[in-house]
């Protein structure tokens, strides 16, 4: 019978990504409730040394698939090896990160195993021995509780939502056969964003601007505030469609759905599709001249005033406080 919780760890260039620890801690919690084991899938080239780090966060056993063909990530190769490890070890639950890679991989693996997958979950629990996942739908306008009719039950977890806590376990390595067929896809180039900015989906602080920024140059003061708070600048659809900011900066139903600790909305009126994308943020500040703007219905702290006067002072004050 299917038993235990398996996570599919994510690493890039020999370093585990933060979501891997969030997965390990969450899996540990689920497994402890039934006295089960946590295992992990770890694929790449020369990645065995990372197993101990997973152990630190509660993983008992790590299945290491080492093969140069698995680096960098290619969907079909990773899916083949991951699905084989799942089949051979028969876990009841498999958790992925709802990162770009995790989403790409989890859906392919679920189809290979003809099982169900809940994407981008914000809560997971075991109820009567079965996994129940809570996940936003309609970009957070409502939530669904998902149950499974096939095994294993698979879920991807939204980054930044589940705490990662150290809880040392063995992290014992089991090497697995990671041979793959010749691949039809090839990564030609990885062009890194050298700005050093954290991606919106992984940022702890987001400072977003909308139509009220009046133009691309208006975002300079938001960049300064974001820098003071070690955050990332986001934008509303209006600002992106106007060409003021890049598409990757867009927060909302047709952009990124984010859940930082702090979201500061500047000059954003709060179209429903934007609110959907940011309302799961832990603390929301809205700065807008229009006291009737819908953004204030979601804000923990609202400032009704001229953002061009408020933001620079806020930046200076934050610098003083954060140091």
């Amino acid at each position, binding site marked *: 019978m299917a038993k235990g919780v398996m996570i599919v760890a994510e690493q890039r260039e020999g370093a585990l990504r933060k979501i891997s620890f969030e997965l390990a801690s969450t899996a540990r919690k689920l497994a402890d409730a039934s006295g089960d084991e946590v295992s992990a899938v770890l694929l790449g080239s020369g990645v065995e040394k990372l197993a101990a780090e997973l152990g630190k966060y509660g993983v008992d056993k790590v299945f290491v698939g080492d093969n140069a063909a698995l680096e960098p990530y290619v969907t079909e190769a990773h899916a083949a090896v991951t699905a084989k490890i799942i089949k051979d070890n028969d876990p009841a639950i498999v958790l992925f990160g709802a990162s770009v890679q995790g989403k790409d991989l989890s859906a392919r693996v679920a189809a290979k195993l003809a099982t169900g997958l809940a994407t981008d979950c914000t809560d997971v629990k075991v109820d009567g021995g079965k996994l129940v996942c809570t996940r936003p*739908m309609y970009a957070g306008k409502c939530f669904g*509780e998902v149950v499974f009719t096939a095994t294993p039950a698979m879920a991807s977890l939204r980054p930044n939502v589940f705490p990662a806590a150290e809880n040392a376990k063995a992290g014992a390595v089991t090497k697995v056969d990671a041979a793959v067929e010749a691949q039809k*896809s090839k990564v030609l180039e990885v*062009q890194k964003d050298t700005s050093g900015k954290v991606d919106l989906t992984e940022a702890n602080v987001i400072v977003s601007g909308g139509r009220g920024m009046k133009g691309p140059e208006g975002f300079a003061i938001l960049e300064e505030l974001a820098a003071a708070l070690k955050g990332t600048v986001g934008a509303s659809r209006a600002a992106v469609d106007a060409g003021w900011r890049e*598409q990757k900066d867009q927060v909302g139903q047709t952009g990124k759905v984010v859940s930082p600790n702090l979201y500061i909305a500047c000059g954003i009126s709060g179209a429903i599709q934007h609110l959907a994308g940011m309302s799961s943020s832990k603390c929301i500040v809205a700065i807008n001249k229009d006291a009737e703007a819908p953004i204030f219905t979601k804000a923990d702290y609202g400032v*009704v005033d001229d953002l061009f006067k408020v933001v*620079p*002072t806020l930046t200076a004050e934050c610098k003083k406080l954060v140091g």
Partner: protein
Amino acid sequence: MNIIACVKQVPDTEAQIKVKGDGSGIEDGQIKWVMNPYDEFGVEEALRLKEKNGGEVTVVCVGPARAMETIRTALAMGADKGVHISDPALDNADAFVTASALAAVIKGLPHDIIFCGQRAIDDDAGQVGAMLAELLGIPQLTLVTKLEYAGSSVKVIRPIEGAQLSIETQLPCVVTAQKGLNEPRYASLPGIMKAKKKPVDVKNAAALGIATEAKAKVAKTIPPPARPPGKIVCGDEPEQKAAEVARLLREEAKVI
């Protein structure tokens, strides 16, 4: 070229979503239905490839009777024909069932590139494209913002966290479209007139021989957690308000 564009009909992004009292789903009476915005990018890219290289674009859609409007929209944009998979047994289809239905149809059609939206903005699952690729046994390229066609292969750009990947894949393959891929056209009036005469084949689940039970079921739909009412920060001057916000974030919310 034989190009497939998969489309879904979804509530407009500005739609208010109200959960039914018994948690069995959403109230859909007042909703304005549109083509999933990410699918529009897929249809547009399919049309551009056809216009440049010749060939045919087939639109495939899983959805209830009303979804025919979305198929007609794609035909009005310039697609050549449609397949509508419509069956009450598919009303609660999850991504696996939907992908199985699409795969059953597409297996019987010549295909070089299959476009899907990177996700549908209703259930936000983002699984169908990858599942479809697996069921057809072909490569997938998800979240694509740029595509160059080169005969037997394509080269695409896909953004990941903190980087952009350039990937080359042999055809046939599934491409899931991300915003930025193109600017979808509006259907022209002559396009709308012509679309009415274009063929749409309607199929049910039995004709496709697929199982319709969802592997992942939404057992209950719930409204989002209510946020406690916020406070409007007071002060005579904007600078005072700014200082007060900084203090509140530090001392009360403890987020900075």
